[in-house]
């Protein structure tokens, strides 16, 4: 299996790129594995990768009902940041951020993680109080970030409209310099290639149809490609976690909603950072290809249709035009939708379930992409050891019974 580098690229160029090996194999599923990961999105593939890398588990498989990275991993606006309010979230996302910072090298796959900074805008006095509170908490938690004024934002982003007479003027922002964006597909592919190299079977077009259990202990799954036995099963299926939970016989505090995003036609570089506004509902960055990548809001109703309402697009585009009036003549090329599983406290659920050996990692809502490596890392620990890592202990399912919620609504909103 060839390592990727400029040298291998040159070498292969000479042989017309005919000697590259597959980034990952497409094996037939075996009858039994030591562990199964259901869901071949970024989080699932990362879980498999770290299970192999950190916990030495090699006889494992990732089951994906469609094509890997085809869910929210390939449908989001790729924003990465760790400036969360509460300690529990901050530590988890910061773990993820640290993994991001070495991910391309670790995976030997350029995920194009680009730390061009993230601005979270404040449009009123309460926004600014919340921003101060969050940035102060971040700082004391060892996470970079500071509060910037409207003028400082304008200096960094000359195209932005900071007119204080507009409807919801930009008053200030938090700025996390280490935040940024990554190439979403590459993250799935890089983890898949890494996991495959460690021996993990990545099985696509394999839909789980039932979860087998005996006396409250998980024993395997039925799939469209036959039954597979395993005593450890990690479920990482984003929007579909309620469907899998129902198979296993319990309910989740989760509702799956459509979340939309859109891109413009490619234009020459004009935005060099990431700008997020909860208050007017618009997030924007520019991809390396030149598209303006824009996140819209979440639709209020539940939906598995991977599409939302036009009114949401209309509202977000208006918000972007308020912030960047010169973009009115730029054109929107394409829109799409994902399915986000939201929890009552806007925080994920990572950990054990009522069924022994069955673990769930879900509820990332609109913010899962940035957590991909960290989520996989802690979940691998949880699956391997049968109990949570310190970093995901607080994200247990039973917090909805005890009331120990981690309310990130203010900090997360529909933030990507």
């Amino acid at each position, binding site marked *: 299996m060839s390592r990727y580098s400029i040298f291998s690229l040159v070498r292969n160029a000479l042989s017309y790129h005919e000697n590259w090996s597959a980034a990952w194999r497409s094996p037939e599923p075996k009858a039994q594995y030591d562990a199964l990961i259901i869901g071949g999105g970024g989080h699932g593939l990362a879980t498999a990768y770290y299970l192999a890398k950190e916990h030495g588990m090699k006889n494992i498989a990732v089951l994906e009902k469609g094509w890997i990275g085809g869910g929210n991993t390939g449908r989001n606006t790729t924003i990465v940041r760790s400036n969360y309010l509460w300690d529990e979230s901050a530590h988890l996302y910061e773990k993820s951020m640290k993994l991001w910072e070495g991910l391309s090298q670790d995976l030997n796959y350029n995920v194009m993680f680009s730390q061009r900074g993230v601005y979270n805008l404040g449009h009123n006095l309460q926004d600014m109080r919340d921003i101060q509170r969050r940035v102060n908490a971040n700082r004391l938690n060892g996470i970079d970030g500071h509060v910037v004024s409207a003028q400082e934002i304008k200096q960094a982003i000359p195209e932005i409209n900071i007119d204080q007479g507009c409807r919801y003027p930009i008053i200030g922002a938090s700025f996390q310099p280490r935040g940024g964006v990554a190439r979403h597909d590459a993250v799935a592919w890089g983890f898949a290639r890494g996991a495959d190299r460690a021996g993990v079977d990545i099985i696509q077009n394999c839909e789980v149809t039932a979860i087998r259990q005996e006396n409250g202990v998980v024993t395997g799954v039925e799939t469209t490609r036959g039954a597979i036995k395993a005593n450890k099963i990690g479920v990482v299926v984003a929007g579909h976690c309620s469907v899998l939970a129902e198979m296993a016989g319990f309910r989740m*505090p989760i509702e799956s909603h459509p979340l939309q995003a859109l891109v413009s036609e490619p234009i020459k570089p004009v935005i060099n950072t990431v700008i997020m506004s909860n208050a007017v509902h618009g997030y924007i960055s520019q991809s390396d290809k030149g598209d303006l990548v824009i996140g819209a809001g979440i639709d209020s109703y539940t939906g598995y249709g991977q599409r939302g309402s036009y009114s949401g697009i209309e509202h977000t585009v208006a918000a972007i035009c308020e912030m960047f009036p010169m973009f009115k003549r730029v054109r929107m090329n394409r829109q799409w939708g994902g399915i986000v599983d939201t929890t009552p406290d806007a925080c994920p659920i990572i950990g054990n379930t009522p069924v022994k050996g069955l673990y769930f990692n879900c509820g990332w809502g609109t913010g899962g992409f940035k957590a991909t490596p960290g989520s996989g890392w802690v979940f691998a620990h949880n699956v391997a050891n049968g109990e949570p890592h310190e970093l995901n202990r607080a994200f247990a399912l039973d917090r909805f019974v005890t009331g120990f919620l981690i309310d990130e609504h203010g900090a997360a909103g529909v933030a990507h």
Partner: protein
Amino acid sequence: MLLIKCPWCGERDESEFSYAGEAHIARPLETEKLSDEAWADYLFMRKNPKGAHREQWLHAAGCRRYFNAERDTVSYRISATYKIDEKPPRDQSRNQS
């Protein structure tokens, strides 16, 4: 954009309505006698099905009535809307047969 038939006002654009979550979740009567688990179940646990879903909507910009709808969460087709005091359509037919 959904087109939702308010049981009073008829078919109206989605933008007149607001979604109000899963329907037919009755508030427990003697809450103090409930276990933490039972209370959490009422408070947080949801069916969230992929397929037919019974849910509440409020005709917020219209008659301000809450009503129920049965909607497919994949196709978004609404097979029926019914008033709060009415039974879901399928239950009704079962009663009739």
